[in-house]
C-alpha cells in the first residue's frame, strides 16, 4: 500500500544515469512491511533511487505505465496478491527488466525456480547491504547483452561511441564502463522505444534527451507475434535473423531492433522451457516427482494454471506460446488447445533442444500480448485471441506443418491446430500430422508445448513448449477410447531440456525418436491415440515433446485437468491397462501435474502400447521416464538411461496415479499410442 515515489532530487533525466550505479532506479516489492522497510533503507544506503510497494499488482501497474521508469526490480517470492515468480515472468516479458528475487526460503528448488523463471539473481532474507551493493551489475549486464544483440543487426557498435561520450556525465563509480553502459542503456532504451528508427545512430547523440523521452514500446500483439513466429518458423529458428524476420513479417513501423529483442526473448523462453523440462526430469528422478511446487515449469508455477495449460484455457501461457507458434510459423496452437484455440504448438523440436527456448520465449512473448494479464492467468485474455486463431490454425497448421519440417528437425508439428493434433511430430513423419489435428483438439490444447517434439529420428527435440501444456492429457481420455496413456515422449529428446520445458510434466519417456510416434510429446492427449496412431505413429502423440508430454487425449475439452503437459497426462486409470509391460518406457504418463484439475481420471490418455505407437517402446532405452507414477517430473534432461530405469521400476501397475493430485503422475503408458 505504500508507494513512495521516487524521491529525490535525481530525476530520471540527468545525473543518475551518468553516475550509474548511483541513482539506479529500483522498484522494491514485498508484502512484509518490515522487510520492505529494511530493503528500502538498505537500497537508499547504496545510493539507489528506491520506490517501494507492497503489492505486486501495484508494482506491475507502475512498471507498465512507464517502462523506462525503473532499472531494476526486486521482488519477494511469497506475496498474497500474486506469486513472485509470476511477477518475475511478467516483468521479464513485458518490460525486459532485470528482476531479483528475494525470499526467506533458500531451498535449492525454489532458487532454481527463480532462475528458470528468469530471475537474474536470488537473494536470501535477511538481506545484507553487501549483496545489494552489487545488484547494479545485473542492469549493466542486461544492457550490454541487449546492446550486443542489437548491434549485430545494426551497424555495429559505432553508435556506442558517441553514446559514451555523451553519457559521460558524472560517472563516478565506474569510470569507463559506466559511461558505456549508460550510453548503451540510453541506446537500448531508444531502440526499444522507437518504432521507426532503425539505427540508433541518430539517437545516440541525444543521450541525455532520449532517455528522458518516453517512446512507446512496441507491443507485441498476438497478431504480430504470430507473424513473428511464422517468420521464424519459415526461416528456421537457427537461421532466423531479425532482418529477415522483419522482411518476412512485413509490418510497418517495426524496426529490426524490435524484432531482435523479441527474438532474443523468444529464444530465452524456449531455452527456459527446455531447461525446465530437464530440470523436472531431474527433479522427478530425484524426488520421485512429488514435488509439485518445484515444477520448474516455469510458467506453470507462477501462473498456477497458467501454465498448466489445462484445458481450462488457463493455459494462456502456453497457449500463448503456442500461439507464438514458435515453431510452426503459423500458430500451431492447434494442439488441441482447446482453449487456446490458438495455441500453436510450439514446436518443440526445434530440433534439438532448442525448442524449449522458443517456447519459453513464446510464452513470454505471448504474455506481453495479454493485456492486463492479471495475476492469474495472464493469458486468459489470450484464449480469445487464440480461439480465433484456432480457426485459422487449421489452415495454418497445414502450412505450418510444412514449415515445420523445414524449420525444425523433423519435428512434428506442433502446429497446434486447434484440433489438437498435437502432433508432436517428432519426426518428420508427423509433419503430416495434420491429421493429428484431428486427434483431438483436446490434445494439446494446452500445450503449447510445442509438443512437437521434433523427434526426428533422434531425440526428440522435445517439444519444449509443452511444458505448459499438458493439459491435454486430461483430455485425452475423453477422446481416447482406449485411454491410451500418453506417454511421455520418451524420445530422445529427453536430454533435451525440452522435458524441462514441459513444465514439469514429465516427458514421458517416449522416446520417440525414429518413431513417428513421438507421440510422446505429441499430444498424446488427443485422445484417440489409438486411432490416429495406427501403428507406429502415434498421432496422438503424447505430447512428448521432448519432454513435454502432452497429455493427450484426455478429454481435452476444457478439461483442464489435464494440464499435464507433460507427456502423458495419462489417465491413471488407464494406464494400468495398456500393456504396461512393454511400455516401460513411455508408459509413464505424466499427469498434468498442474493443478488439481489434473486429476486425470477422466483423462487418461492411453496410449496403446501394443500398437506400435509407441515405437517408443522399443525405444525403451531411450525412453525415459515414466517411471514413477508420482508426479515425478521428468525433465528431458534426464538421460535415457535414467529414464528407462526409472520407468522400469514403477512401471506397471505400481504406478500410482495421483488422483487429483497436482503432482505429476506418471503413468506408465503401456500403450504407446
Amino acid at each position, binding site marked *: 500500500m505504500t508507494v513512495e515515489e521516487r524521491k529525490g532530487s535525481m530525476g530520471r533525466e540527468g545525473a543518475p544515469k551518468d553516475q550509474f550505479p548511483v541513482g539506479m532506479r529500483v522498484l522494491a516489492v514485498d508484502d*512484509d*512491511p*518490515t522487510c520492505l*522497510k529494511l530493503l528500502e*533503507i538498505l537500497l537508499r544506503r547504496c545510493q539507489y533511487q528506491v520506490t517501494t510497494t507492497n503489492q505486486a499488482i501495484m508494482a506491475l501497474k507502475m512498471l507498465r505505465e512507464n517502462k523506462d521508469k525503473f532499472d531494476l526490480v526486486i521482488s519477494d517470492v511469497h506475496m498474497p496478491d500474486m506469486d513472485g515468480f509470476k511477477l518475475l515472468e511478467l516483468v521479464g516479458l513485458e518490460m525486459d527488466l532485470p528482476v531479483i528475487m528475494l*525470499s*526467506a526460503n533458500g531451498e535449492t528448488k525454489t532458487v532454481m525456480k527463480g532462475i528458470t523463471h528468469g530471475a537474474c539473481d536470488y537473494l536470501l*532474507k*535477511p538481506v545484507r547491504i553487501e549483496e545489494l551493493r552489487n545488484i547494479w551489475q545485473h542492469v549493466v549486464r542486461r544492457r550490454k547483452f541487449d546492446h550486443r544483440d542489437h548491434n549485430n543487426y545494426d551497424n555495429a557498435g559505432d553508435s556506442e561511441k558517441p553514446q559514451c561520450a555523451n553519457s559521460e556525465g558524472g560517472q563516478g563509480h565506474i569510470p569507463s564502463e559506466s559511461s558505456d553502459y549508460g550510453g548503451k542503456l540510453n541506446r537500448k532504451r531508444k531502440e526499444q522505444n522507437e518504432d521507426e528508427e532503425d539505427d540508433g545512430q541518430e539517437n545516440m547523440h541525444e543521450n541525455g534527451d532520449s532517455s528522458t523521452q518516453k517512446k512507446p514500446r512496441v507491443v507485441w500483439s498476438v497478431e504480430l507475434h504470430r507473424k513473428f513466429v511464422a517468420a521464424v518458423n519459415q526461416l528456421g529458428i537457427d537461421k532466423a535473423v531479425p532482418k529477415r524476420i522483419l522482411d518476412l513479417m512485413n509490418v510497418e513501423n517495426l524496426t529490426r531492433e524490435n524484432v531482435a529483442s523479441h527474438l532474443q526473448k523468444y529464444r530465452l523462453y524456449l531455452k527456459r522451457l527446455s531447461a525446465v523440462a530437464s530440470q523436472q526430469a531431474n527433479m522427478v528422478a530425484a524426488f520421485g516427482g512429488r514435488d509439485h511446487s518445484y515444477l520448474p515449469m516455469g510458467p506453470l508455477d507462477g501462473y498456477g494454471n497458467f501454465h498448466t495449460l489445462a484445458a481450462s484455457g488457463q493455459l494462456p501461457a502456453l497457449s500463448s506460446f503456442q500461439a507464438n507458434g514458435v515453431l510452426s510459423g503459423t500458430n500451431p496452437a492447434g494442439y488441441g488447445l482447446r482453449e487456446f484455440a490458438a495455441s500453436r504448438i510450439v514446436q518443440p523440436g526445434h530440433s534439438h533442444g532448442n525448442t524449449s527456448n522458443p517456447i519459453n520465449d513464446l510464452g513470454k512473448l505471448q504474455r506481453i500480448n495479454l493485456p492486463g494479464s492479471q495475476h492469474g492467468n495472464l493469458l486468459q485474455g489470450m484464449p480469445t485471441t487464440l480461439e480465433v486463431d484456432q480457426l485459422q490454425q487449421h489452415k495454418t497448421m497445414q502450412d505450418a506443418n510444412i514449415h515445420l519440417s523445414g524449420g525444425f528437425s523433423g519435428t512434428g508439428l506442433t502446429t497446434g491446430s486447434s484440433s489438437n493434433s498435437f502432433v508432436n511430430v517428432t519426426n518428420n513423419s508427423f509433419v503430416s500430422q495434420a491429421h493429428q489435428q484431428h486427434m483431438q483438439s483436446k490434445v494439446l490444447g494446452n500445450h503449447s508445448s510445442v509438443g512437437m517434439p521434433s523427434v526426428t529420428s533422434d531425440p526428440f527435440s522435445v517439444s519444449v513448449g509443452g511444458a505448459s501444456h499438458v493439459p491435454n492429457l486430461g483430455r485425452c481420455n475423453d477422446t481416447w477410447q482406449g485411454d491410451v496413456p500418453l506417454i511421455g515422449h520418451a524420445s530422445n529428446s529427453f536430454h533435451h531440456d525440452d522435458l524441462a520445458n514441459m513444465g514439469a510434466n514429465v516427458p514421458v519417456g517416449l522416446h520417440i525418436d525414429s518413431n513417428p510416434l513421438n507421440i510422446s510429446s505429441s499430444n498424446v492427449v488427443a485422445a484417440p491415440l489409438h486411432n490416429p496412431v495406427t501403428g507406429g505413429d502415434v498421432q496422438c502423440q503424447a505430447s512428448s515433446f521432448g519432454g513435454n508430454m502432452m497429455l493427450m487425449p484426455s478429454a481435452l475439452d476444457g478439461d483442464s485437468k489435464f494440464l499435464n503437459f507433460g507427456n502423458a497426462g495419462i489417465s491413471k486409470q488407464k494406464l494400468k491397462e495398456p500393456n504396461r509391460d512393454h511400455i516401460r518406457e513411455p508408459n509413464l504418463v505424466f499427469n498434468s501435474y498442474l493443478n488439481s484439475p489434473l486429476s486425470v481420471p477422466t483423462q487418461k490418455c492411453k496410449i496403446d502400447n501394443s500398437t506400435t505407437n509407441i515405437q517408443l517402446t522399443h525405444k525403451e532405452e531411450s525412453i525415459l521416464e515414466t517411471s514413477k507414477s508420482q508426479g515425478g517430473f521428468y525433465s528431458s534432461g534426464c538421460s535415457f538411461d535414467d529414464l528407462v530405469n526409472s520407468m522400469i521400476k514403477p512401471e506397471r501397475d505400481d504406478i500410482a496415479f495421483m488422483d487429483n493430485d497436482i503432482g505429476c503422475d506418471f503413468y506408465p503408458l503401456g500403450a504407446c499410442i
Partner: protein
Amino acid sequence: MAATALKEQLNGLVNSMFAEGLLDEQFQQLQMLQDGSNPGFVAEVVTLFCEDSERILTELTKLMDQALVDYSKVDAYVHQLKGSSSSVGAQNVKLACIQFRQFCEENNKEGCVRALNVVKHEYYRLRSKFETMLQLESRIQAYENKQQN
C-alpha cells in the same frame, strides 16, 4: 548526564538481548543503518515488525483453532513471520518459526499448536524488551534534543 545513564541502560539492555539469543547480528546491521539521515530507523523497523507479527500471530491462532487445519496457509504465515523476524534480527522468534514449519510439513497438529505457543512466547518476550528499548531511545533522543536546544 541523565542521557548517559540512559544510554548505558539501553546498551545494557541490548547487550543482554544479544546474549540471550533474542537478537542476532542482523539487528546490529539495523543499528548501523541508523544515523543522521535515518534517526528513527530502528524504532521504525521494530514497530513495523511488531505490528505485523501480531497480525500474523492472530491469524495463526485462528487457523490453528479450526477443526481441520489448513497447513498450507499456516505455513505461508509462518514463513512470512520467519522472513520478517530474520530481517529484524529476532533470532529466537525466527528459530521458533523454523520449528513450527517443521511441524507444519508433517501436518502435525499438536506439534503445531505447541510450536505456535513457543513462537508467541518468544515474540512477547522480545516485544516487551523492544518496548523498553524504544522508550529508552526516545528519552535519550529527547534529552539530546533538549541539549542541542
